[in-house]
């Protein structure tokens, strides 16, 4: 008579379905299908979909491309570490390096313009956590992830590393300005 005893009828798959269960299964199934459609639909109508454009890369290769962009578009440097601030033109390819324990360089975007942001890590896994917008993307070494970003608000943004990467993980914060 209970769940810890064998069922009285030998063929459990022939047990009758209670009405309350049947109703709930239909409601739950409809909701599940709505949620599924929502994910697919957002790819068609939504504006926030994570790109899957990815290339294999190496630290040397990526560093070279990032350096070229920095050489071309640096407008000033900031902090005692003289971190370059780059202001690339809209639509261009921008490279951001994650490594123990900083992001490089600092980037200046223009509001409403789109940029192709390339992300990779030179060592461990890192996290790209854009605050306060709260956009979070994994950065995996060996893989160059290209994301088209369109900032919708101006201000000063921080890029917090939110994948544990060692003892100074908490000091790994980068910056993006949106004008």
């Amino acid at each position, binding site marked *: 008579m209970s769940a810890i*005893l*064998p069922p009285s009828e030998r063929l459990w798959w022939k047990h009758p379905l209670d009405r309350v269960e049947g109703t709930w299964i239909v409601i739950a199934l409809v909701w599940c299908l709505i949620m599924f459609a929502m994910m697919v639909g*957002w790819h068609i109508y939504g504006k926030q979909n994570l790109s*899957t454009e990815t290339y294999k890369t190496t630290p040397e290769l990526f560093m070279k491309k990032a350096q070229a962009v920095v050489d071309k578009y640096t407008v000033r440097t900031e902090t005692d570490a003289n971190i370059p601030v780059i202001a690339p033109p809209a639509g261009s390819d921008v490279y951001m390096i994650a490594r123990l324990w900083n992001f490089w360089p600092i980037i200046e975007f223009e509001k409403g313009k789109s940029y192709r942001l390339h992300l990779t890590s030179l060592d461990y896994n890192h996290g790209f956590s854009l605050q306060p917008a709260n956009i*979070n993307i*994994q950065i995996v070494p*060996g893989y160059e992830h290209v994301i*088209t970003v369109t900032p919708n608000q101006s201000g000063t943004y921080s890029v917090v*590393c*939110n994948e544990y990467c060692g003892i100074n993980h908490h000091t790994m914060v980068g910056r993006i300005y949106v004008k």
Partner: protein
Amino acid sequence: MSNTTTYRTCPRSGLQFEAQAEKLMLVNAVVAVVFLLLGGILAIGVVLTRWPAVHWLEADTFYQVLTAHGIDMLIFWIIFFEVAVLYFCSSTLLRCRLATPRFAWLAFALMLVGGIMNNVAVFQGGSSVMMTSYVPMMASPWFYLGLILFAVGALIACFVFLGTLVIAKRDKTYQGSVPLVTFGAIVACIIAVFTITSGAIILIPTFFLSIGLIQHVDPLIYRTIWWAFGHSSQQINVAVHISIWYAIAAIVFNAKPMSERVSRGAFLLYILFLQLASAHHLLADPGVSTAWKVVNTSYFMYFAVLASMIHGLTIPGAIEVAQRQKGYTNGLFEWLRKAPWGNPVFSGMFISLIGFGFLGGISGVMMGTEQLNMIIHNTIYVPGHFHATVVVGTTLSFMALTYFLIPVLFKREMIAPGLARLQPYLFGFSMYFFCLVMMGAGTLGVSRRHWDMAFNGAVQAYEWPGAAYLMMGLVGISGVAAIAGGAIYIYVTVGSLLWGKRLDPGKQSATLTPIPPTPASTVVVQSYGSAGFAAPGTFVLAMVFLVAFVLYYFINWKYLSTVWGLS
């Protein structure tokens, strides 16, 4: 072999324990509780460091403690206890001897050695790689070897369980189908075999990497396969703790599943679709296609979510039907009001079920939605979610089951029954709050696995909003309360085992008594309840759940629509 063992019939529960199985359940459960104690002590360090006003441990100690806390709780405490549950669901519920007890002891020894080895590696330092141990960050070889030995032991235990099912079938100890709870345990075991195999596929090469035998393990491949182990192991927990909920409903209320077909069908959906969920750890990763993400993270159109929503209805539904048959038929909720809230076996189970559904289930679907994941990935929302599933869901269910097992399996009278009565409420509700404030802080973006939210020493620190600090303070306070609840559980369990009054073990017999055939049910459940519904109160609760789910789902989409455009 079958002639050398004895069978004990517990006078308090009528359950029949085979001698070898009983010893093995006992040692596995006791070692599980020891790991819970260890994990609980470590939790103090984690909580008091993440509480910004306290910020107790140094960074290196914090990451070490966090690594050990994760592994001791998520792997060692839970899987040791699960092995005990597997033996219970096979040998005890089917009333047969345990298959190959020597292998079961070998499994236990391997798991114990592996568990200790892994802990020693972490506490020696140099292995603070978190539970996930993503390459190329490397731990000491002993770290991986410990996990591998543990996994081999757990795999052997799974096969002992399967062998025991064969023995029960051969010895005809039951007629017809296995009980629903055993069915759930079989599902857990099948998932476990898949899980452990995935773990072996990735941890063995990583072990080779750590001793220099191979030069490279691809970080993205590692993440993909590791999560087939890391997430699927949580799916074992789901199958096990849902089986425990059914078992407790049966033990406390003599509740019969509303429909065996529905409950077992839902378990079968778990086998087919639950594993796909490991994909939702890769939603923010490069290199994985959109179609792959969408199909997998939705557990193939949310069929596994459907299964959980079904269990969430049928378990309280079965209790409601049983209570209504006892005469608690007034209104929608008399059956629930008159439930034995002072019995920690029931209260623990019910607090677990509600928390798992409302907090763990809903938040899990949010994180597992491809686009919504971007506002949640690696924030402290994630531990908020999995403390609702693994602590409120799994751990609290195990605690509730322990209160039943103390007199039945340990043969001891429970010490401090008053404390035990309080425990599920203190632990459960402080965990509810703990999870909620973590999710709150995560919604504001606060990172998980992060030593210092003030970014001390960073060249260009970020200033979190005041609300984030407030939430993290509340995480600290509720975390301490939950740890106190956990301490009561350990005190009651260990204390009962050491000092509890010995109870009559019951009749010993050299032969087993098969389970008598279950009489055909005569009552049609529809004759109770109202409006043709056998369980109207449960249905109302389910609708409340659905409304909360739908609202929160669309609130998150609204939030997502305000962030930067991404394509």
